[in-house]
């Protein structure tokens, strides 16, 4: 990565600090710690300003100096820059004053936050000479890899645990990848993918391309800060599964602060996990830095059902450095969170989003998040993909005959119609 418009200096072990070239490697040969992309911030500071960013198209590449590609952005040109919704109705309901939702449920083209990490990974895969990409996924990543690979003309081999929601399976198959359903948990799928990545010359976005892939998640922080007028919010609530998003949002805010794009860094980050798979939040609440994997996750939030989170330690670190906390949501609370968000703000989020909203409410109710400070909750996925757990929990349509008499007879009381 030597091009003059490339600001990446290489990869560095997050554990022992050893440096590596920016290739398809992801763990330290010495201590096995995960590698992370490093940048030349002095050079970036000279070329990246709020004005240069404002002059660029509204997609995730408007922050390209802080993303790990060597060439010009060519993939995912319509991804990212999702709405930051001022959520006054929800704020009123929760009793807070300044609440926003980062709405990745309408990210393009596959309706989840994965549309911001996959273009970065695939761009780097192409630069490194791969023609086949893959992933281990609980669904949203499968959708995003399949879609972006199809557009980029790459072969896609995608691994999912058996039993995923139909919407996520069909939302992958429609793009024509090789989709492999593994009889096991996500963690077993991921372990298998690591073995496959070692044997076949494929770019697994969340295995051997993980250092690049995860950098894409920083764009969530960049966008939030820009959309707030170049300031960071005081509180950010995020869902945690494998642990990419939260530490990278923290890294994103820190980079903006380091570059002088935001004057202060007041943000506290909060982790949201489902009851039944909360290894990271358990560690936060117990005040330990040991994460005990969950062997058999039990939750309707399948996209958060990762019992052995790759970057869980870095979630703990980011939460601790920022002064945040974490909480969990039961299946019932997840459903209530989904309904609350829908009826107040018109956003139908998936189960992971229900976890986020439920935890947001708990953190406010418990006083962890003060009612008069700025809050952003990250809504990372779309409810139309995970309808199964909603089925039967929302009531049902009233069925009538196609006549006025039947309408008034059946619906009259429901709608409190005045007698004609």
């Amino acid at each position, binding site marked *: 990565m030597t091009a003059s418009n490339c600001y990446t200096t290489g990869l560095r072990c997050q554990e022992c600090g050893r440096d590596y070239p920016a290739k398809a490697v992801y763990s330290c040969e*010495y201590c096995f*710690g995960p590698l992370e992309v490093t940048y030349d911030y002095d050079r970036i500071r000279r070329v990246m300003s709020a004005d240069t960013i404002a002059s660029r198209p509204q997609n995730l590449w408007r922050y390209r100096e802080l993303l790990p590609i060597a060439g010009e952005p060519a993939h995912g040109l319509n991804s990212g820059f999702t709405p930051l919704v001022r959520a006054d109705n929800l704020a009123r309901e929760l009793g807070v004053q300044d609440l926003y939702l980062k709405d990745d449920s309408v990210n393009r083209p596959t309706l989840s936050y994965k549309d911001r990490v996959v273009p970065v990974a695939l761009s780097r895969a192409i630069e490194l000479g791969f023609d086949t990409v893959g992933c281990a996924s609980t669904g949203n990543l499968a959708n995003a890899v399949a879609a972006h690979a199809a557009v980029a003309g790459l072969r896609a081999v995608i691994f999912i645990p058996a039993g995923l929601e139909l919407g996520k399976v069909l939302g992958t198959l429609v793009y024509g990848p090789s989709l492999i359903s593994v009889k096991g948990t996500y963690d077993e799928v991921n372990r298998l993918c*690591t073995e496959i990545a070692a044997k076949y010359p494929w770019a697994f976005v969340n295995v051997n391309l993980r250092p690049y892939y995860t950098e894409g998640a920083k764009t969530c922080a960049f966008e939030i800060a820009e959309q707030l007028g170049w300031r960071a919010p005081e509180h950010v609530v995020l869902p945690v*599964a*494998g642990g990419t998003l939260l530490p990278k949002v923290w890294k994103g805010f820190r980079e903006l602060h380091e570059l002088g794009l935001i004057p202060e860094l007041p943000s506290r980050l909060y982790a949201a996990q489902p009851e039944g798979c909360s290894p990271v939040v358990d560690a936060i609440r117990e005040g330990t830095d040991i994460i005990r994997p969950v062997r058999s996750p039990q939750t309707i939030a399948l996209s958060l059902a990762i019992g052995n989170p790759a970057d*869980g330690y870095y979630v703990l670190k980011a939460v601790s450095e920022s002064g945040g906390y974490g909480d969990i949501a039961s299946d019932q609370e997840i459903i209530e969170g989904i309904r609350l968000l829908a009826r107040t703000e018109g956003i139908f989020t998936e189960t*992971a989003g229900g976890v986020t909203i439920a935890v947001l409410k708990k953190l406010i109710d418990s006083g962890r998040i003060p009612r008069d400070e700025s809050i952003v909750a990250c809504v990372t996925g779309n409810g139309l993909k995970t309808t199964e757990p909603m089925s039967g929990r929302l009531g049902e349509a009233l069925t009538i005959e196609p006549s006025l008499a039947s309408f008034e007879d059946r619906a009259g009381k429901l709608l409190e119609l005045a007698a004609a």
Partner: protein
Amino acid sequence: MSVKVRIPTPLQPLTDHQPELEASGETLREVLANLEERYPGIRERLYDDGGTLRRFVNVYVNDEDIRFLKGEDTALSDGDEISIVPAIAGGGPACG
């Protein structure tokens, strides 16, 4: 106790390129100490400066993660199989 230990590729230069070794010890801690005696240098790859197993080294006894057992104090029986496995990029993030 005599147990079998599987060595991951990155550590095999330290074990004369043997992928599998016999080792002895009553507990996992003793087995790893036994390995260090015979193949010096292996300890610093597995343990951090504070003397605890590195966070990104996973150890399995008969395919069970030692975090579900008693960690390094896990007692061993003759013929147990121990696998040392670099922790993988274990997860697709927030919505996998």
